[in-house]
Structure formats: structure tokens, C-alpha cells
């Protein structure tokens, strides 16, 4: 038998691994469901067939991503119990109802209408089918709301009391719990991130096919739509991120100290450390490249505003600085690159070169996974930055875990790693294969074409006529 801390570390790695893998899928489906709804809506409104062609193109990918999101999500809903039994017991009366609402108002909605969305095109009318698409999109949104409410409560707990068994319970107002201080910022920032993630994936696929065939009208259409998102939402996301950061400074200042690499307090204006290597043993950032007083300017909007550092925080209450510091920089760096691509595309669009400028397409292609990387970096920043707490200031991570033996956790962690890389690796491969095919004109016009020609049902894969077009 090993010592408990090791089991704790393994359990943390396991949760980080399974939740990171999981979140990649909803990060795509949240945005993609809305994109599909927009495409179908535009098709119904304008009758332009290429909207429907793009709908069919992307719904194949959506189906794959959604299935992986479902199965990796079921793991999450049980992992609180298997590995974090004490946390579940203590926080259950607060977070349990919020997650139950997520299941009731979101998961069932998505699952209930997904079948019709994928397979029901000629079983129900156009209007009902569009309704099904909208319901699935709404479900992804509602799901994000509830689970982010849970996470935000763990970051900025409010409206709670404690009972005799040491459980957190509602102090009376559930609204105070649900709409805790960080929810609005986290929700806006995360949803916007999901939309950007999808936009850059769609943009990269469009760019790839433009590089191969500049004339493909469907590749042009998806590239143009994606670049509009990049132009408008990427700068907006930087603003939302800034607001979220200011909210974090107010409620979780220690996290911001780690993000900024501020080991020392700065009574008369803190520097903005652009790069450097955090050295927690010596409480300093080695090789720091910094702009004097700029951090105070950003965080307090005043060059000389004092900012407290980690020297004001007991060592036992400090998060691991290096991870937070770097994850934050990766996220921010990608955010600015995204806004840069958005600006370039606007310039190209104005000059009438949106579909001609090959370097723009190459840039967009390279930025394809940027949303996914940024989203993970953002979550690592906020989750690791909350350490050593599971519920900020109230319950420590070390006091949250199940009384598991290290071998049990190690074995399950190994199993998760092997299965996830094998299964989801195959899934990513299949998605890339779909993305590599150019979006084409389908032979018959909707609504006679069932969505099965999208390939989500078997018949198609075996029918030579559809194979020829794909």
C-alpha cells in the first residue's frame, strides 16, 4: 500500500485527464450545434442549396463529436463519486441539484432531439426538423449554463451554510448559489470560446479546401462565415477575458498573482511580466521580460496602484505558479493570434482577396486547433489557479478525495489513458478524414435527401452512388 498523498495526486491527474479530454468535445459541439442551426435557418430562409450542403457536411462531424462527448461525459458524472466521494458528500446538496437541472433541462433535450436531427429529415417536416436542430443547440447552451454555474460556485461560493454533518447546504436562496459572482463572466467567456473554437475549425477546413480549389463555393461560404466570426468574436473574447480577469482579481486574487507571476507585492505599481520562468523555490521569476507598472495599469487601470503578491499568502494556500503562469500565457497569446487572423481576414475581405490570398488560408489552416488549445489552457489556468482548494477557501483538494488506495487509482488512470487515446484517437482520425473531403453538391435536392446521405447511417456507406460523390 502506498501513502495517501500519492493516491490523491493520481486521482487529480485522472480527473484532469478525463475532464480535459471530455471538454474538447462540448467545446466543439456547443459552437457547431449553433452553426448547424444557422445553416439550416439560412437554408430555410434563402433556399440556397449550399447552406444545406454545408449542413450535411458538418452534421457528419457533429455526430462523431457528439457521440464522443456523450460517452466521455458519462464518465465525468460518475467520477465525482468514484474518486471524490468526500467532496460529493459535502458539496452534493449544493452542486447536486444544479447538475440534476443540467440533466433535466439540457441532456434530455439534446438526446431527445438528436435522433430526429440526425435521422429524421424525411420523417418529420422541414419546420419540425429545424426545431429539432434548434433544441439540440439550445440544449448545449443550457448544459453549459448549469455546469458552469457548478464550477463558478466552486470558484466563488455564495448562498451556502453548513449543516451538522459538515455538508454545504443552501442558506435559503438558490438564486444566490446559481448566479454566484463569477458565473456571468465565466459563462460569457466560455461560450464565446466554444464559438471561436468552432469558427477556427470551420475556418481551417474551409481554408484547406480553398488551398486545393479556390473555386469551390461551399469552401468559400464556410471560410467566409468563419472569418466573420473571427473578426467579430475574437476581439470581443479579449474584452470578455479581461472582464473575467478583473472579476477573478476581486474574488480570487491569489489566482491572479499566480497568473501574473507576482511573487512579491508591489506597493507602487506592479510590472507586467511578459515571459520568464517562475521559480517558486526562490519566490521570483527568472529571466523575466517585463513592462514596469503595466500590470497595475491593466488590473487596476492605474499605473501606481498597489498590487499584493504571493508573499502575502501562506505557502500552504498558494497554487502551483508555473502551470498557471504558462497556461495563462498560452491562452492569451492564442487569443491575440485569433484576433490577428480576424483582422487580416477583414482586410482581405475589404480588398476583395478573401478567397485568393493563399497566406491567409495557410494561416487559417494553422489556426484550426487554436481554439481547442486555448480552451484547455484557459481551464488549466482557472482550475489549477484555484488550488489547493476544490471549493475556494472552504474545502481543500486534499480533503475531498475518496479513501482510495493508490494501486486502484493508478490502474484506472492507466485504463482511462489507454482507452481514451485509442478510442478518441480513432475518432479524431475519422473526423480528419471527413474534413479532408471537399464539401460537394449533393445529387438530389432536399427534402428528398435524408440525412442518412450524410453517412450517419449505414446504407449510405454501402451505396455506390453516394460513395461516388463523397
Amino acid at each position, binding site marked *: 500500500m502506498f501513502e495517501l498523498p500519492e493516491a490523491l495526486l493520481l486521482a487529480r491527474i485522472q480527473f484532469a485527464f478525463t475532464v480535459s479530454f471530455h471538454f474538447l468535445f462540448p467545446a466543439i459541439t456547443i459552437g457547431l450545434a449553433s452553426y448547424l442551426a444557422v445553416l439550416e435557418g439560412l437554408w430555410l430562409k434563402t433556399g440556397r442549396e449550399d447552406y444545406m450542403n454545408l449542413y450535411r457536411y458538418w452534421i457528419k462531424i457533429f455526430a462523431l463529436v457528439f457521440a464522443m462527448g456523450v460517452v466521455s*461525459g458519462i464518465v465525468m458524472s460518475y467520477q465525482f463519486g468514484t474518486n471524490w*466521494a468526500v467532496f*460529493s458528500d459535502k458539496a452534493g446538496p449544493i452542486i447536486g441539484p444544479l447538475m440534476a437541472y443540467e*440533466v433535466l433541462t439540457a441532456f*434530455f433535450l439534446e*438526446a431527445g432531439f438528436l435522433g430526429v436531427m440526425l435521422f429524421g429529415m424525411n420523417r418529420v417536416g422541414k419546420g419540425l426538423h429545424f426545431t429539432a436542430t434548434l433544441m439540440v443547440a439550445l440544449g448545449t447552451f443550457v448544459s453549459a449554463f448549469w455546469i458552469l454555474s457548478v464550477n463558478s460556485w466552486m470558484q466563488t461560493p455564495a448562498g451556502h451554510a453548513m449543516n451538522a454533518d459538515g455538508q454545504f447546504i443552501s442558506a435559503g436562496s438558490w438564486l444566490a448559489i446559481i448566479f454566484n459572482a463569477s458565473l456571468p463572466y465565466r459563462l460569457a467567456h466560455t461560450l464565446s470560446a466554444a464559438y471561436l473554437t468552432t469558427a477556427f475549425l470551420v475556418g481551417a477546413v474551409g481554408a484547406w479546401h480553398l488551398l486545393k480549389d479556390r473555386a469551390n463555393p461551399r469552401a468559400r461560404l464556410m471560410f467566409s462565415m468563419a472569418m466573420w466570426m473571427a473578426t467579430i468574436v475574437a476581439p470581443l473574447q479579449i474584452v470578455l477575458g479581461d472582464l473575467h480577469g478583473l472579476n477573478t482579481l476581486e474574488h480570487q486574487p491569489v489566482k491572479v498573482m499566480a497568473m501574473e507571476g507576482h511573487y512579491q507585492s508591489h506597493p507602487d505599481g506592479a510590472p507586467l511580466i511578459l515571459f520568464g520562468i517562475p521559480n517558486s523555490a526562490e519566490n521570483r521569476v527568472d529571466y523575466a521580460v517585463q513592462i514596469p507598472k503595466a500590470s497595475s495599469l491593466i488590473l487596476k487601470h492605474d499605473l501606481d496602484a498597489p498590487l499584493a503578491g504571493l508573499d502575502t499568502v501562506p505557502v500552504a494556500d498558494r497554487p502551483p505558479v508555473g502551470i498557471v503562469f504558462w497556461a495563462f500565457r498560452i491562452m492569451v497569446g492564442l487569443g491575440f493570434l485569433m484576433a490577428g487572423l480576424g483582422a487580416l481576414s477583414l482586410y482581405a475581405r475589404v480588398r476583395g482577396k478573401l478567397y485568393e490570398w493563399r497566406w491567409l488560408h495557410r494561416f487559417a489552416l494553422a489556426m484550426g486547433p487554436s481554439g481547442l488549445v486555448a480552451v484547455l489552457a484557459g481551464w488549466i489556468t482557472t482550475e489549477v489557479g484555484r488550488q489547493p482548494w476544490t471549493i475556494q477557501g472552504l474545502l481543500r483538494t486534499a480533503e475531498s478525495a475518496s*479513501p482510495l488506495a493508490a494501486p486502484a487509482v493508478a490502474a484506472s488512470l492507466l485504463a482511462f489513458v489507454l482507452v481514451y487515446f485509442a478510442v478518441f484517437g480513432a475518432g479524431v482520425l475519422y473526423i480528419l478524414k471527413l474534413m479532408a473531403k471537399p464539401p460537394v453538391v449533393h445529387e438530389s435536392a432536399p427534402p428528398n435527401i435524408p440525412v442518412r446521405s450524410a453517412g450517419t447511417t449505414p446504407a449510405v456507406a454501402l451505396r455506390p452512388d453516394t460513395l461516388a460523390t463523397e
Partner: protein
Amino acid sequence: MNIDLTVIWALIIFVAVFIYVVLDGFDLGIGILFRSFEVGHDRDTAMNSIAPVWDGNETWLVMGGGGLLAAFPLAYGLIFSALYAPIIAMLLALVFRGVAFEFRWRDPAHRGFWDLAFTGGSLLAALSQGVVLGALLQGVAISDRAYAGGWWDWLTPFSLITGVSVAIAYALLGATWLVMKAEGNLQRQARALAWWLGGATLAAIVGVSIATLFLSADYFQNWLHWPNILWVAPVPILVALASVAFVRSLRAGHELAPFLLTLGVFLLCFIGLGISVFPYVIPGAVTIWAAATDRSSQVFMLWGTGLVLPMILAYTGWSYWVFRGKVGAHGYHA
């Protein structure tokens, strides 16, 4: 208000788990039987018959787990940490079978592999769920709000028997579902499977029921002591009647009745379980009142459940209605 919300919540979770068991039961059952179907038309038909609904079916599993966390947080943590290995095995098995729905069409070169993953995942998930049931029935060691047993406590001859029993019963649900949804060769094969799976399920029910009675004095007491026996006797009697009706309906070539009768038997078994276990959530150790969440949480969730659950049932029913009738190999569009 004098209504005991804890009992209401126990009922809600009980019903959610029951709905999960019968819904995912038939699609896990089809997974278990999948590799016995002929490659090509029959396998495609079998999978298409559940493709639009499996995701919704599995959502009830999240509802059961999430509901348990919400309504009985102590039990949620205890059960899943105590039954760590079978729960993790179930989750991983569900990963394999869930992605197989999509992957097998995406990769014809490896379709055989994903078919195997579909069957293997379905079988392992069913076995794990049965083992979890058996391990709960035989009792879980608990001290001071934490699991206090060993990591292999769940593994006993009894839990293995319940594991196999659940897998058999799921396979029966799958077979009778296909009797209802399929035609031709596949339907004939499903009917033949339903014959012996029906017999095996009945044997499993009898075996597990008798073994359960001798697991603990509570179970024995709840069933066989006067006057309890008067109240509970209808359950085994109805199981016997349903079994007779099942045989007759199969013999008469009915398509819908075998599935409905199997559902009926599942319901009776569930009621039987409830009789054995009530008022415990972890038999012999934690009652529903000891595990219950705060009253404010119960009330808050009851609002949501009361408002939303009827809508869920309505649109889920609608979705099944959209995909009603026989399914062809070309999906529901043929």
C-alpha cells in the same frame, strides 16, 4: 407539509433507474447479441433500430447517477467509491459501445473491430451493472461516512451471478425488441433467441431471488414473515403469470407482446428489489433518511423535476413515435 420528500426522492431515483434499465437494457441487449447476427443486412438493421434512441436511453444513466448525487449525496460517494472497479469498467465499456455506433460506419476496413467493441462493450457494461447490483445487495462496509472495505469486496459468487443474470435479461430485452422492430431472417433469429433467453432469464430470476433471501435477515423478514408475505406474494405470482403469457405470445407469433411482457417482468423484479431493500439506499448500512440531502435541495429539485420531467417524457415519446414501425437496413428512411 407532512409529505416525506425523502421517500418521494427515493421513488424518483428508483423510477429513473428503472427507466434506464429497460431502455438501455434493450439497446445493450442488442449489443450483446450483435455478433451473432449475420454481417451486412442483419447487423445494420439491428443497429439502425436503436441508433436514434440510444443516446437518450443512456441519459437516464446520467439522471440516475446525477439524481443520486443530488438527492442522496452520501450514498452517491459511498456506492461509487466502494464499487470502484465495476463502475470504472462499466464507464470504459460504455465508451467503446457508444462510439461504435458512429465509428463502424466511418471505417469499413475496421468494421469488424468496432462490431466487436460494440458487443464487448455492451456485455461488459451489462455484467458490471449486474455486479454492482449484487455487490450492493450483499452489503458494503462503511464507517464514519466513508467506505471501509477492501478493493475486491464486491467480487463474490453472488455478485458474479447477478452480473451474468443482468446480462442475460438485457439480451432478452434486446431479442424481444428486435422481434418487434425487425423482419425476415433477423426477426426469426431474434425469436429463436428469445425462447432460450426467456428460459434463462426466468431461471436467473428464481436463482437470484432465492439467493438474495438468504443474504440477510432483513430480506428474509421483508418477504417471508407474516403478514408481509400477504402483501408481497403477488410479485412472484405475477412473474409466473407473465412467463406463461410470454411463452404463449412467442408461440402465437406476436411481435409486440413479448417485448411488453419482458418489460413487465423487469418491473416486477424492480418492485421485488424495492421490497427487499427499502428503506435502505445501501442495504443494511445507510437508510434513505441518513443519506438524504438537505430539505431545501429536495424542494428546489422537486420543482424542476415536476415541471420538466413531463416535458421530457413527452418529447422522448415523440421521438420514439417518429421512429415507430419496422426498421430496414437502410435506416428509418426506407
